[in-house]
């Protein structure tokens, strides 16, 4: 970027970038564990958490009540979070701000990487696209089609892939690449 590269940063800049990347990595791991315990990591688990509640009885549209016998085994035994619209709104606004800001800071670091412009465009876009796909997928799962829960998993994976690529390439360039001055 205008002759300025990760490999030529002063030590303070290298330490800042390294610790930031490590910190975000730890945060991403914690978020992964949190998502797996609170919701689950399969499209089915995401769908169960986000999709509108469907009747367990055969209560049709317009019917005022329905009853059927069940066993306790039919009631969810996993302590999972069930997201309804108000929680979805809260989650969306915090995650859209938070993840976009993280993607922005990751992108700022990666702009100084010495990779081909085309590749840089692709990698720097991954966390942003992943965030939009993740949060957008939540809304589509709830209001459009429950099977679109796969977008939430795909979005999270894209964000993670973007982070890993940015972190690995940046850390390599920060500490191992010898910049050849033109």
């Amino acid at each position, binding site marked *: 970027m205008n002759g300025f590269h990760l490999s030529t940063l002063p030590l303070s800049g290298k330490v800042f970038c390294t610790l930031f990347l490590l910190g975000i990595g730890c945060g991403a791991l914690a978020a992964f564990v949190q998502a797996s315990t609170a919701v689950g990591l399969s499209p089915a688990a995401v769908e169960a958490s986000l999709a509108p509640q469907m009747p*367990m009885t055969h209560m049709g549209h317009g019917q005022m009540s329905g*009853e059927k016998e069940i066993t306790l085994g039919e009631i969810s035994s996993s302590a999972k979070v069930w997201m309804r619209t108000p929680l979805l709104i809260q989650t969306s606004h915090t995650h859209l701000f938070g993840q976009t800001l993280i993607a922005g800071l990751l992108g700022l670091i990666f702009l100084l990487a010495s990779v081909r412009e085309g590749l840089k465009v692709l990698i720097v876009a991954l966390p942003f696209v992943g965030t939009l796909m993740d949060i957008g997928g939540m809304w589509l799962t709830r209001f459009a089609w429950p099977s679109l829960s796969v977008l939430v998993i795909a979005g999270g994976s894209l964000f993670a892939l973007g982070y890993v690529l940015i972190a690995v390439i940046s850390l390599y360039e920060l500490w191992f690449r010898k910049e050849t001055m033109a």
Partner: protein
Amino acid sequence: MRNLCWLAATALVILAAAAPAPAHITPPVVLASDRDAVAGLLSGARRFFVREVRLTPAERQVIRQQTGWSADEDFYRFYVGRDEQGRVVAATVFLTEFTIHGPVRVAVALGPDGKVKGATVVELTEETYPWVKPLLDREFTREYVGRDARGTFTVSVGGGDSMAQFYGQIIASLIQRAAMLYEVGVIKRGDAA
């Protein structure tokens, strides 16, 4: 060096913009699964049923007038426990209030007479849990056992902790809403037996 200063300034602006994020909701704390809550609250029941109720506009209006709460879900689900003779032991319903600090979800058991038989807080958030824990430790929801929807549902924390008071009141209100929901959607329809 000018580029570096520009980058650092941009990063600083982004970090400053991110600062309000921690002020928002924290991750959920799930205290019990639905199955555990239902099994605990319907103890003594031998058979279990799901009764789903869709409220009429008039029923929603009654609930709003009595409790100030807008019951706007498409339908409400009661888990009904019956004894071997088919008599209703109790019915459990899950209700949630979404606060600025995250959701509070409560399971409430109601007898066939509409009186509260028990209540369990099943979900909070990391932030709200410490506020509510002192109340949970003294099993404050027992204070409401035996009350129907028209009873008094206030909370006293006895120490002036305003957040505990606030969340205790939310839980108490959820218990009252459950009682009102059961009264309007089941008992008054003649479906409680």
